[in-house]
């Protein structure tokens, strides 16, 4: 779009009366289908008119409906809850459904999250990663005795419950992993989401594991000590989890294990 048309229609944009006022967006998408041996990774550019309140989710659907029926990308909740729409937005990991096009320059570049297995175009398999992380870190409450399911659960301090809930907000979108230089260099690094999960279970009074037990899971250079405190994770997490604080906290606790 040229500067002059921007100026002549600028006023109408404000009031939203005129359709011509809409910005023309150019969305460049990294396309590749790993299932198809003939497919080469390539950028394809799509143009469309920006609509009021448009998110990348809306833009991508429109592109698929009107221009590229084979375009692959993931969405479920459209509200930043399910964690399936993580992608590189102008090089930065983020949730497409929570990204307003109006906050960006009209030329937008989208690519799949690195590190994860590519399904096709913008779709990656974060599910497989989340599952292996859960198994590796044993992300469930560990108790010695069988819980008595006929009895009311022990009460928890509201502050404690609040703190656990805060860390439980992780939606396993994978953005923190894709933003982590360590995770990109070293495939076995647990990443911030994993360390945050450990911190979450450590807080939970029902989990009987000791710091020695947690050390077995994250006390290594693939765990907390591998983190180089680049804090990309902290700065991109769409749920704004306190990853910086949790990483430092777990590092201190694990460094103290005798």
């Amino acid at each position, binding site marked *: 779009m040229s500067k002059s048309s921007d100026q002549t229609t600028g006023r109408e944009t404000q009031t939203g009366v005129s359709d011509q006022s809409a910005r023309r967006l150019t969305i460049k998408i990294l396309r590749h289908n790993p299932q198809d041996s003939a497919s080469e990774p390539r950028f394809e550019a799509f143009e469309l008119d920006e609509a009021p309140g448009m998110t990348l989710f809306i833009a991508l659907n429109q592109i698929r409906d009107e221009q590229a029926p084979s375009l692959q990308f993931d969405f479920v909740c459209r509200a930043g809850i399910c964690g399936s729409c993580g992608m590189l937005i102008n090089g930065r990991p983020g949730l497409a459904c929570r990204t307003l096009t109006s906050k960006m320059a009209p030329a937008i570049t989208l690519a799949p999250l690195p590190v994860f297995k590519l399904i096709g175009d913008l779709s990656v398999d974060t599910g497989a990663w989340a599952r292996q992380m859960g198994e590796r870190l044993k992300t469930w409450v560990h108790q010695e005795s069988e819980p008595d399911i006929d009895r009311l659960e022990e009460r928890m301090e509201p502050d404690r419950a609040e703190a656990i809930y805060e860390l439980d907000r992780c939606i396993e979108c994978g953005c923190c992993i894709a933003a982590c230089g360590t995770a990109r260099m070293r495939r076995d690094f647990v990443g911030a989401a994993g360390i945050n999960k450990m911190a979450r279970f450590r807080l939970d009074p029902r989990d009987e594991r000791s710091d020695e037990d947690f050390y077995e899971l994250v*006390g290594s250079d693939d765990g907390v000590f591998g983190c180089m*405190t680049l804090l990309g994770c902290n700065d991109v997490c769409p749920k704004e989890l306190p990853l*910086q604080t949790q990483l*430092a906290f777990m590092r201190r606790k694990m460094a103290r*294990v005798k």
Partner: protein
Amino acid sequence: MLASRLPARLDVLQSASGVFLALFMWLHMFFVSSILLGKDAFWHVARFFEGYHIFGKPYPILVSGFALFVFVMFIFHAALAMRKFPADYREYSTFRKHAGELKHGDTTLWFVQVYTGFAMFFLGSVHLYTMMTRPESIGPYGSADRIVTDWYWPLYLLLLFAVELHGSIGLYRVAVKWGWLEGRNSAATRRNMKRAKWLVTVFFLALGLLSLAAYIKIGIDHRDNYGEHYVPASLSVPLEPRQ
């Protein structure tokens, strides 16, 4: 079998050795910059570390000993921190591409730390070895001659930038890594620490550049008397064991 506690210990030692070196470099800069107060000031600082003011006679071996200690810490820290270097070209290029795409301050700063750390392997070793083997030459004329006539100024100029960037980034990283002084609002603390980090870098760079300029000026003026030792106003003959 229990997981090894070694990674935990090494991580703590890496930070501890880095903090020791970084704080030592601050003190070091204050000593070196005493040249800005005049030749006598630096002469006294240099002799002080040789025990002159305690024993009445300089013992340069004390400086050799301390330089050796710093050299050992330096090698120790480098050996531990080296574990974090990209291990091969694939890791290096992955990180480089990542840092380029993400445009994220702390990620880029880590790269600066890797580059400056690598450079210091060479630059720092030359300097420390010289201090270990030629301690008696440290002084307003000896150091200035080394810098100008012996061509150490390019080495010191590069080393200055490497140390000041590496050390203050390192201190900032140690603080966020272990959650020191985090307070209630970790984001605000981090912003302030980063601001402080840049101020520290600029302050020590400025002090270092001014000091280096002062030595270069003395060295140029002293070129024709290379090797002569400085005699402070308070003494009439050079100290033993100088010639």
